[in-house]
């Protein structure tokens, strides 16, 4: 370990950099400055339940981690007991008496989350350590963490796409088999119940869609199309919230109201996304000239082993196909994306509430930025998921 710098020079550099390291002092927005000196910064343990006094740095104690962890245990235990695959592996056996455990688990997780948030509510941007060394010199450490987290998220969706590509490329298309008059490309006959690939787009954007009352695209595509715009717009509203939070020309009250409204708009758009998704999956719609059955009504389910596939351009000809694999990849890939939206909603609920309480200000706006990074990522994933699953 060697460096060509002299000791003196090093000490000089350190003294310069130390100013930005650790606790960064800023004027608090609505100062309720207490008189604890710097020397107390790390001797303080704080309250494990919150609210936390961020003047003393990050919480040294928290009940949230242990509560949430065991909540997840209870939740997963309940889930795995409530839903059990049957012996033929083609349906799930529902054990309703375990359902309360699932709910209890969920409640415990939420209560852990509330503890976490309770500690965070008092966060006012005072404590925002910065990165000291290359390659992230002077960038907020939380921001570095967020980008690194997204690295892992990238791998999550890559793995889902791997599954999709493997099955999509490796399974013969039902349409091709039908075109071939119920014969595989290698000449073997197709027997009813065999697995082949019916893409989700067949139900959503393809020949199966009943009507094309909209000039541009079939009705079933309506929820997906609206969703795409909803997510893109919501990415924009998050940016607006951040911009507003950074404005110094507004008084605190008005600014807080605006931030709340923008975050609220994001929240509503995100909720709209999930609601439309559920409509598309399970409910379907029939409004005026617009009619589209849900994917469930269409028979596009993870358990359907005998789908009556009539394809395009074959009159009365059809084959009975097992489309479970296609359905499983579709629902799980888009569902994982949906779960990320749901995670965003949970975060947004907290942030909207905090904005409502006047918790954000130019000195404390970066949390919105970090959420925005995540939200843009979720948006970006949708931009990949949508064409791959809905259109192709």
């Amino acid at each position, binding site marked *: *370990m*060697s460096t060509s710098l*002299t*000791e003196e020079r*090093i*000490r000089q*550099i*350190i003294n310069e950099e*130390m100013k930005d390291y650790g606790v960064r002092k800023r004027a608090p927005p609505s100062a309720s400055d207490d008189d604890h000196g710097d020397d107390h910064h*790390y001797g303080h343990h704080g309250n*494990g339940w919150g609210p936390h006094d961020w003047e003393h740095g*990050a*919480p040294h*104690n928290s*009940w949230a*981690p*242990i509560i949430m*962890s*065991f909540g*997840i*245990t209870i939740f*997963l*235990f309940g*889930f*795995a007991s409530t*839903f*059990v*695959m*049957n*012996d033929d*592996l*083609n349906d*799930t*056996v529902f054990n309703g008496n375990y359902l309360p455990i699932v709910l209890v688990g969920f409640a415990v997780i939420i209560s852990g989350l509330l503890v*976490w948030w309770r500690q965070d509510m008092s966060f006012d941007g005072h404590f925002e*350590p910065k*990165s000291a*060394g290359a*390659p*992230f010199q002077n960038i907020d*450490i939380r921001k570095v*963490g967020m980008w*690194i*987290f997204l690295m*892992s998220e990238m*791998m*999550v969706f890559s*793995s*889902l796409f*791997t*599954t999709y590509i*493997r*099955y999509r490329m*490796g399974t013969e298309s039902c349409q091709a088999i039908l075109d071939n008059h119920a014969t595989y490309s290698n000449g073997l006959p197709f027997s009813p119940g065999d*697995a082949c690939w019916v893409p989700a787009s067949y139900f959503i954007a393809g020949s199966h869609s009943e009507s094309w009352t909209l000039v541009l695209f079939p009705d079933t595509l309506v929820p997906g199309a609206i969703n795409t715009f909803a997510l893109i717009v919501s990415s924009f509203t998050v940016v607006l919230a951040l911009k507003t939070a950074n404005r110094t020309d507004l008084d605190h009250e008005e600014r807080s109201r605006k931030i709340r409204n923008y975050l609220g708009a994001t929240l509503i758009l995100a909720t709209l996304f999930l609601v439309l998704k559920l409509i598309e999956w399970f409910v379907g719609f029939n409004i005026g000239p617009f009619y589209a059955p849900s994917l469930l009504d269409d028979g596009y389910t*993870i358990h359907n082993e005998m789908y009556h596939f009539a394809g395009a351009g074959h009159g009365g000809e059809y084959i009975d196909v097992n489309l479970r*694999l296609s359905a*499983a990849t579709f*629902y*799980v890939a888009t569902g994982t994306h949906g779960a990320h939206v749901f995670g965003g909603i949970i975060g947004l609920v907290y942030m909207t509430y905090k904005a409502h309480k006047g918790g954000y200000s130019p000195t404390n706006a970066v949390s919105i930025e970090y959420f925005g990074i995540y939200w843009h990522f979720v948006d970006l994933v949708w931009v990949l998921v949508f064409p791959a699953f809905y259109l192709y």
Partner: protein
Amino acid sequence: MKVNVKILAITALLVASLMLAPSLQARSGGINNVDSGCTCHSGSPSSDVSPFMTLGNGSALPSEYNPGETYTFSFGFTGGPGSEFIAERQNTGGFNLVATSGTLTILDDSTQMIAGQLTHTTTGNDQMNWSVDWTAPSSGSANFQLTVNSVDGDASPGDGDHWAQSQFVMGAPGGVGETTTSSADGITVLFSAILLVSLMLLISVAYVFYRANPESFSWSAFAPWISEWLTSTDHKKVGTLYFVAGLFYFLVGGVIALMIRIQLSVPGNDFLTQDQYNQFFTLHGTVMIFLAAMPLINGFANWIVPLQIGARDLAFPRINAMAFWLNPAGSILILCGVFSGTGADVGWTGYQPITSWVSSHPGTTFWLAGQLMLVASSTLAGINFITTICAMRTPSMGWMQMPLFTWSVFVSVMCLFISIPAFGIGLIEAFLDRTIATAFFNTSAGGDPLLWSHLFWYFGHPEVYVVIIPAFGIVSEVLATSSRRSIFGYKSMVYAMAGIGFVSFIVYGHHMLTSGMAPWLRFVMMLTTMAVAVPTGIKIFNWLATMHGGSLVYRTHTLWSLGFLVTFTLGGISGMFFPSIAMDIHLHETYFVVAHFHYVLVGGTVFGLFAAIYYWYPKMTGKMMDERLGLLHFLIAFISYNGLFWPMHKLGLMGMTRRHHTYFIQANEYSDVVGTLPPEVASWNSFITINAFIFGLSTLIMVTNMVMTLVKGKKAPADPWGGWSFEWLVSSPPPTPSFDDLPTLIDVNEEHGSEKKENWLTRLMVPNDPDEEGMN
């Protein structure tokens, strides 16, 4: 010293009783003097002999058995020379019966058990039919192989005797009822287990608290103390929690391993049923890798990394605590099935399609869920460590000035972080298969089991490096300190680690060479795997060069590091056999593989962790560990370790398969029952079991050492070994926060280059330098 003698005596006693234990296994005498007509078949089977097997009352075998019920079988043969009238006939017939599951119980003196197989005695040699009791197992179908010999009675085995063989099957009871009943009582079991474990932990924790200050023991003093531990986000406290949890599961995994070894100590044993055996090897692997090795590594990483880079804590302390608590919380799910006898039984690799199939236990679902929580834990820990190391090094410390342990944690966490999402997605897919019945790995719906293998091993191979690379770091630190010099080739060490980390992503197919993966991919994986040896070799030579240029002090941690060098290198060499595709087809799923990965995982990771325990224990607790007990531990463990795993290479080459409940040996050299092994396999296995117990028990020496020195050990100075990374700057144990002012890294050569050489050497190399004591 008194303690040493006591411990030695107890160890000796235990070892002696263990050596005697196998001979207590049923093996009625007379193996040598039996006229064993059955093993003397000559030529091909004869059609005039027909074996039969019925229930005792003459009715046919039922197609399904009732678990645990005992059936009486009547079996034998008709036809052949045995049924002819021959004057002065000496014998009539013989047999050999092998049951794949359940327990055979001898009824009279006409039959006997030899090497787990039922055969006749001298008395029974004069009969044409025999009977035996069979107790049904709890699940799985039971196969019986009956070989009969109809003899001409001239006392010369072979000529004129006719033989034949038949298979009989009794199926397992239908799976439906079993599934629902077992998951029904699972809940009671889960909650009692949670309660019991928490109670035990609480009691031991209360004891620790009581010992610290017996006078002022009261609830009002205890409650804040315990809640401090449950809620702390301090990196040192969380590190200790990781450490305690890791050590606890290390012992759990060890006990499971010993039970596996008892089962394998003699051929045809049924100490564990097949069903239990499957669960045990699954849980052994899972517990050891995910709940023991990784938390122990995390414990050290938590403790040491912030100290080494001069940071006040990790970047996200609360997320750090969350990452820890997901571990014990997930472990409940992983283990919960086993208490009700329906634990995961699919191997730590969870191969498909069995994992998504009804025939694997309900516990598999919970196992998948528990693993998922560990994936979440690793992801959170990954964010934390990567951010900390990237962003929180003390300003004067560049990347190439980071201590090697920190580098190793960085590389290992990077590998883990980028690979584990693939595993997580695989787990989610399998979990959904088992719950809401998606079809990801359902072959009848077109699912592809190999997809799981790819997702798993894309993570699984980096994972094995995740657990070995921190050991590289530890050994680098220990050997440099013990050699009283800086590490040889620091930069090449860093590049080698980074290289191993990178290459580990493109070699994973070597676990799938026999799986039917694309042939061109096999070839690529063969080449890349072999390339791993290059950076690994660089590291080993650097360590040797470090010692060569230094002057070694033999502390306990030094010994463990030296042991590591030997055993890890041996494990690396056995690893080089597999990537050769043809060789792997022979060696795959044999004990040779078991030998390989235990050489790298135990001889590598665990030895490294032991070195780390002896090395950093004074820093963590402020108490010196006893070096004599340490030496004793090392000697016993190192020798028994090699006795335990080295013969496994031989067993693997002889054809002993891994993950099998038991094995059978040939009754003699003429025996040709397919799948039986040469007789020496049995003695090697007993040898291995004895060594396993010695190795397992030797760990208790270390635990005793830790506990005893914690209570009344010598106080440790800040820098007991003469190490010079930042963690040795602060007192032992370090204060909170660890650094009031962030430390500054300066060039030792510039600082001391002008001083007299002896002074510099003295300062760095003499362990008990009064100067360093003064820092305390």
